[in-house]
Each structure stands twice: as structure tokens, then as C-alpha cells.
């Protein structure tokens, strides 16, 4: 199976699990954003343009499931994936967690600011909480997902995240 198909499957699973966790976790309506983890993991070791394209497409699908203006997640994920790719392959779990946490914060900030300024009646007050909680969840989850991300997304490139 090509990496692109694996990426598509991993992205779809990430969306489903994120939605399920937002329903089940104790902080109402807030959960991890697994999609950005998959996007960043896919982009590591790739050309920035490839990573950004993958981020744009994944973000666009996320946008289609939300009421905020379509294109905001797409742009946020694309820019984040581009930037994360420029940062290079993380060495060690600490660097990898830092990269995933920074990418989560950046993408959520870009998306949130876009939604507040362009979205109809979007209240900015939950934005800081969303940034903090989503980043914290992703930072906690990313070490657990690293073997899975390495296996599924990095299958045939030879690059290993956090090693």
C-alpha cells in the first residue's frame, strides 16, 4: 500500500478518534487533535511542498466537518506542516514531543485566529483554553503514538521519528 493511501487512512482514523475522544474526555468539547500529529509525522523527512499539500488536503476535510469558514484548517495545517518539515527530523523523544506540541499550538492558533476574525459570531474567549488543552493532550499522546506513526506513516521512507 502506498504511503499516500496509508496517510489517507491514518488521517481518517485520526479524525474519527479525535471526535470520539472529544465526546468521552472530561473537558467538554475539547480533545486532542490527532490529525495534525499524522500530518506532521507524514511531513517529517519529506519535501516541504509535499508536507504542506498533505496538510492542506487533510485540513480541508476537517473544515468540511466544521461550521467555521472552509479553508482555515487547510491553511493552518499546510503552513504548520511546511514549518515542521523545515525544522528537520527530530532526534530523541523530547525533540519529537516538542515538535508535535509546537505544531499543535501553531495550527490551533492559526485556525483559531482565522475563525475569530472571519467566522460569523465566533467568540474568542474559549480560544486560550482550546490552545492550552489541545496542545497538552497532543504532547501527552504523541510519545504513545510515535511507534504507531513511525510504523504507519513512515513505513517505507526509512526515517524514524524521535530516534
Amino acid at each position, binding site marked *: 500500500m502506498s504511503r499516500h493511501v496509508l496517510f489517507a487512512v491514518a488521517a481518517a482514523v485520526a*479524525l474519527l478518534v479525535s471526535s470520539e475522544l472529544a465526546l468521552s474526555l472530561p473537558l467538554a*468539547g475539547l480533545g486532542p487533535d490527532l490529525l495534525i500529529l499524522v500530518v506532521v509525522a507524514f511531513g517529517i523527512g519529506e519535501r516541504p511542498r509535499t508536507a504542506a499539500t498533505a496538510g492542506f488536503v487533510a485540513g480541508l476535510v476537517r473544515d468540511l*466537518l*466544521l461550521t467555521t*469558514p*472552509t*479553508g*482555515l484548517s*487547510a491553511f493552518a495545517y*499546510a503552513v504548520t506542516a511546511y514549518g515542521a518539515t523545515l525544522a528537520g527530523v527530530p532526534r530523541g523523544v523530547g525533540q519529537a514531543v516538542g515538535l508535535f506540541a509546537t505544531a499543535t499550538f501553531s495550527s490551533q492558533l492559526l485556525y483559531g485566529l482565522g475563525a475569530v476574525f472571519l467566522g460569523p459570531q465566533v467568540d474568542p474567549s474559549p480560544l486560550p483554553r482550546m490552545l492550552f488543552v489541545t496542545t497538552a493532550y497532543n504532547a501527552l499522546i504523541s510519545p504513545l503514538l510515535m511507534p504507531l506513526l513511525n510504523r504507519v506513516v513512515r513505513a517505507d521512507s526509512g526515517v524514524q521519528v524521535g530516534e
Partner: protein
Amino acid sequence: MWRRTLRDRVFIAILVLCTVTVLTLDFRTGILDGVAGTTSQAFGVLQTGVRSFVSPFESVVRTIGDLGSLRGENRRLRAENNRLRRLAETYADVARENARIQSLLRVEGAGGVRGVHARVVGASLSGLERSATINKGRDDGVVPDKAVLAAEGLAGRVSWAGTRTAKVLLITDAQSAVGVRIGTSGETGLARGTGGRNIEIELVSRAALDQGAVKTGDTVVTSGYQGGIFPPGLPVGRVENVTLAPRGTSYSISVRPFVRLSQLDVLAVAVGTELVESPPSPTPAAEE
């Protein structure tokens, strides 16, 4: 590390152009509505499948959580074997759901509402949006702009309906606005979501507020203007505080919803009304 070339810069320009194009298409035309509907429909079906897979595990976890409060009862049941204990846990979960459905039916009956019952299968992917996906859609009579009830009272309204799933905009979402009546004074206002835990009531008569017509602890119910989405008398929440702005120009009325929006499971979509002789009095389950 990749060197940024002219091609990369051109790519970034194209990326920005694509984003602006998508945003423009979204704002100016309805072209993306169909795509979004199809995507939501497909995602909703997958969410339903995932929820049915996850629910049994969640029930076991919840039951384990409840064991702390049932310690006394557990002492009496210590002699029971493992099989019976598992059966008891299953029964407790079924009984809990049954109680919630009974409460839901009471709220429906009190509001004179004929409801389609649905299960919540997913929550919003964004922290800026308060919504839930349910496993009933147009095939079941669920259409947009219908009130949605939980066991304790009003949960929100249908914002989008596919054939088999629908999206519910919760009353705490910043885009939600509900006409309400407050306490015994009967003052009316507009309850807007804040995106946070509570909702805020606006457009209440300043003179009435100056006279103390709205107090902490007052019950808030839907006012149900003719032609509106929400039937009258549905419990919404309780006034948590009434504060005068620092310069005394306006009041802020904060209301805590009766419905525990973080624990939604079974909901009823008000697809029709039944004749009632008098408006119901709110008896929210959350007050128990």
C-alpha cells in the same frame, strides 16, 4: 534542512491563493455546501459505527467509576461470584440509560413535544464550536431548525441534517440564540451561547432588572414565540449570577444550563408538537 528556493516561494503563494479561493467560494457561493454535506454524512455513518463499538467499553469504565459510591451495596454483594457481578454492572448501565430516557420522555411530555430519539455519536472537532453529531437524519424526520432535548431540558437545535445523521448546535455555542422567559417575573430575553460552560441572557428590560426582577437561582425556560424553533416552557437553566457592569451601563445575566452538555447520550429531536392544555412547569432532572 531544505533550502528555500523560488519554487518554494511560488508554492507558498499558490497555497495562499488556494486558501483565499476556498474561503471566497465558502462565503460567496453555496458550491461547498454539497461537498460538506456529503463529507459530514459519510463521517457521521463512520462515527455511528465507532460509537457502537466504543459504547460497551465506556459503559464498563463508567460502571467502575460508580463503584466508589456503591461501596456499601458492594459489601452485601461480596458473596456473589464474578459472573453475577458482571451481570449487575450491565444491569446498572441499562437502568441508568432507562432512567435518562424516562426523564427525556417527561420533558417531552411536559413541553408538548413529539420527539425522535437519537444517540450522540460524536462531538465537534474544534474547541471553538459546541456541537454534537446524532445518529438520526432526514430519513427519520429530523430536519434543520428543530429543537433538541436532553433528559434535563433543552440541549440545542438541529443545524444540519443528512439522510442518516444530523448535527446539533448546542445552546452554549456562540452562534446559538434562544428566546427565554425568566423566573416568576416572566421577563423575557435572548439566551446566547458564549462558547464556554454558561450562557448569557441579553435584551432584558433594564427597568425590570433595576427593580430586581431577575435573581440568582431563577429558573429560565424557553419563551416559545409564535413561529419560533423552540416550543414554550422547556427548561433551559438556572440564573447563576446577575451583575451590573462597572460603569452601571448594562447587566450581565449568566445562566448555567440544566443539561450536562459534556455527558450527552440520548437526545430527542422535537419533530412535532402535541396539544397541551397548559404550559409545563420546569422540573429539571439535573436538580436532583
